């Protein structure tokens, strides 16, 4: 072997050695990467937080809703059975309790509430085409009795089945006057009773579907990732919570505030506010925000925050501060929303609130969702 061949052999050996080393390092990197990915996907945090939210956040809120709905139905039955002139104040108070209950769980837009149009049947809003007004008027014209029977009523237009219809009957001058003064049982009262019973029925269904049990939605969340489950991994179930938070913030900014505020004070539209008849538009917003804050912080510690706390401490603190500040701004508005938006000083507070909610929404889509690793996907509100 001459020196030339020897050098050549060494050279070829070196090349072989380094290319092997290169391949080995590459493989090692790939394996480490895959493992890191796997360990992130299998992280027990997702499953724990999912279940905690179902048990300590969602279930108690549906329980409260059902209690409120039962009390509302009782109040309406009493009201309608009383002799004229009837006093609607107890029913109106029960309505407010029920609205509080709904606004505290409205942000949960996935699971059983999606089935059978339950969410829309409880609270169809906004009614941009004013369909509810027209349909309730037509029902009164026809005095349609068969349509009020349980089976028929559950498949009637959602605009006559739920809370906004009840609000119109209880708080608008013309309908509430009929309820107070009519000598005998009147159609308005019959419709109101059908609505109250319907909301109570739906609330019972929701409570049952989230209560523990092998067929419950709680079990679906608990078994995320197991064969046959709708979620291929626990993180997919978490994605629903994140999406719910984002959608609710979008509803709050786009629908509950921006449509009301108008671009300038001259173009303000107070009657586009949610629940303007019962003067509780701002109260709805505060209940929504408190619910989102609780979902983030956790009712007893384990909320969405838990998933980002250690890896993204700055973001986790920023979001805590953002929820707190936004809520404080909402609570600092003294007047009913319908008045506040028309008065220069209070309006500036409402504008501040809108800005903070929009910023929160962007933080959820731009920071929280990527940090948790849950894409938001297309949104039902993408239309116009």
């Amino acid at each position, binding site marked *: 072997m001459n020196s030339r061949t020897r050098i050549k052999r060494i050279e*070829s050996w070196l*090349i*072989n050695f*380094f*290319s*092997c080393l*290169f*391949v080995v390092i590459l493989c090692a990197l790939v394996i480490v990467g895959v493992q890191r990915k796997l360990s992130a996907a299998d992280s027990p945090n997702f499953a724990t937080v999912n279940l905690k939210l179902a048990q300590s956040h969602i279930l108690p809120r549906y329980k409260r809703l059902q209690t409120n709905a039962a009390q509302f139905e009782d109040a309406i039955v009493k009201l309608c059975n009383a002799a004229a002139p009837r006093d609607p104040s107890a029913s109106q108070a029960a309505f407010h309790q029920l609205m509080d209950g709904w606004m505290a769980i409205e942000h949960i837009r996935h699971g059983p509430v999606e089935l059978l*149009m339950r969410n*829309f049947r409880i609270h*169809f809003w906004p009614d*941009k*085409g*004013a*369909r509810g*007004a*027209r*349909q309730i*008027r037509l029902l009164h014209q026809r005095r349609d009795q068969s349509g009020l029977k349980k089976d028929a009523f559950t*498949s*009637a*237009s*959602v*605009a006559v089945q739920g809370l906004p219809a009840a609000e119109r009957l209880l708080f608008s001058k013309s309908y509430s006057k009929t309820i107070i003064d009519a000598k005998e049982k009147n159609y308005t009262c019959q419709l109101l009773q059908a609505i109250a019973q319907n909301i109570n029925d739906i609330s019972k269904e929701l409570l049952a579907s989230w209560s523990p049990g092998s067929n419950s939605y709680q079990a679906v969340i608990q078994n995320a990732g197991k064969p046959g489950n709708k979620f291929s991994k626990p993180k997919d179930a978490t994605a629903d919570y994140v999406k719910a938070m984002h959608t609710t913030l979008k509803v709050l900014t786009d629908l509950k505030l921006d449509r009301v505020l*108008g671009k300038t004070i001259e*173009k303000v*539209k107070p*009657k*586009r506010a949610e629940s303007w008849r019962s003067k509780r538009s701002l109260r709805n917003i505060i209940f929504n925000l408190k619910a989102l804050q609780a979902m983030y912080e956790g009712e007893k510690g384990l909320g969405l925050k838990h998933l980002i706390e250690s890896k993204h401490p700055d973001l986790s603190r*920023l979001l805590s*501060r*953002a929820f707190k*500040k936004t809520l404080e701004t909402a609570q600092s508005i003294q007047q009913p929303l319908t008045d506040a938006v028309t008065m220069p000083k209070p309006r500036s507070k409402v504008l501040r609130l809108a*800005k*903070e909610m*929009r*910023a*929160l929404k*962007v*933080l959820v*889509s*731009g*920071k929280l*969702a*990527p940090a948790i690793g849950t*894409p*938001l*996907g*297309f*949104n*039902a*509100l*993408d*239309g*116009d």
Partner: protein
Amino acid sequence: MRFFIAIAAAVVLTSTAYAGHHEKKAVIEQYTKIAHAMYSDSLTTAKRLQSIVNRLIAQPTEANLAAARTAWLAARVPYQQTEVYRFGNAIVDDWEGKVNAWPLDEGLIDYVAASYGAESEENPFYRANVIANKSIKISGKTVDTSRITKALISKTLHEVNEVESNVATGYHAIEFLLWGQDLNGNGPGAGNRPASDFDPKNCSWGNCDRRAAYLKAASDLLVDDLVWMTNQWAPNGKATVGLVKGDVKKGLSTILTGMGSLSYGELAGERMKLGLMLKDPEEEHDCFSDNTHNSHYYDALGIRNIYLGEYRRIDGSVVKGPSLSSLVAKTSKGVDQELRSKLDATMSAMGKLVKAAEAGEAYDQMIGPNNKAGNARVQAAVDALTSQTKSIEKAVAALGLSRIKFEGSDSLDNPSAVFQ
């Protein structure tokens, strides 16, 4: 030697990535070409409608009214296919309210039946009836409406008082003038306006000259608006240049945003599911003409067109080129196949709506409260669209695009600063 193979492999990898860039550009270019073809076809059919409207006004016969209705129906075919360009392209979205706003409170424009109702708390102009009134009050000021012009209906009346249902221009305003109200509720039958509504010599319902003037102004305006939009999609138009010269990822996101948002939020949600929830005959997109089945069908076809990179023009010729479909297939054959089969399933569900409507069951009957089979037929199309959206989301992921950027329009530059 292996070392060099490793290097060579790296070079090959980079060059495919480079080729990928060209391929993506080509897909975006094809997207703009199809837009131009679709808007050109919309313009051509709108011009035909315009000329027949002129004939109807000159000779208000039933035959001419029927011809105008046929021309309107034909104009909807290419236009509805353009709707997929609306979401994601601000230039289209900011403009489209002028041509396809819906639903409308038609009492703003002309006479309506008593069942329409006297007032709406959402809309003070619910029964303004501009055709019958030579002046109206807007925010306390009296506005002269003695001459019905393009400017009056587009600048003063359209969305007056910021109420979205004050639709004074576009396809649906013209549709109302050609058909009149559909007073059949959830029962059979469309609007039934007589040709004498446009005949000053033998005038039904009064103000026939003003009604004719309104129809002419709205038809002329539709042509003007479509001329403008067609120009935006010409090879050197603003919309085309913005996409072709812009960021490739952003361009692809635009295409998929349009597909997903139209499929889900708009078509499956606002236009179809809402109708099923409200069971209201007014909740149909083309409610005067009972043409809703076709509107939905061609919306869905537009989504499929831009995914496959092909469009059949009104003259029968086909515009075909590099497709998003083949781009997705490069990364994931499975996702591409799934999405294509979902798009086909939607077309089949939409086809069933069209078939039922052509057999005499109009869309407003299908969404009626006591029509289980009709409800189920509409629901099947909603489900198909929803399912197709999930596959579009998979395509977004397959191409490595993020959904977050899509929100650009209403996002803040620095949301954290708000909470300092």
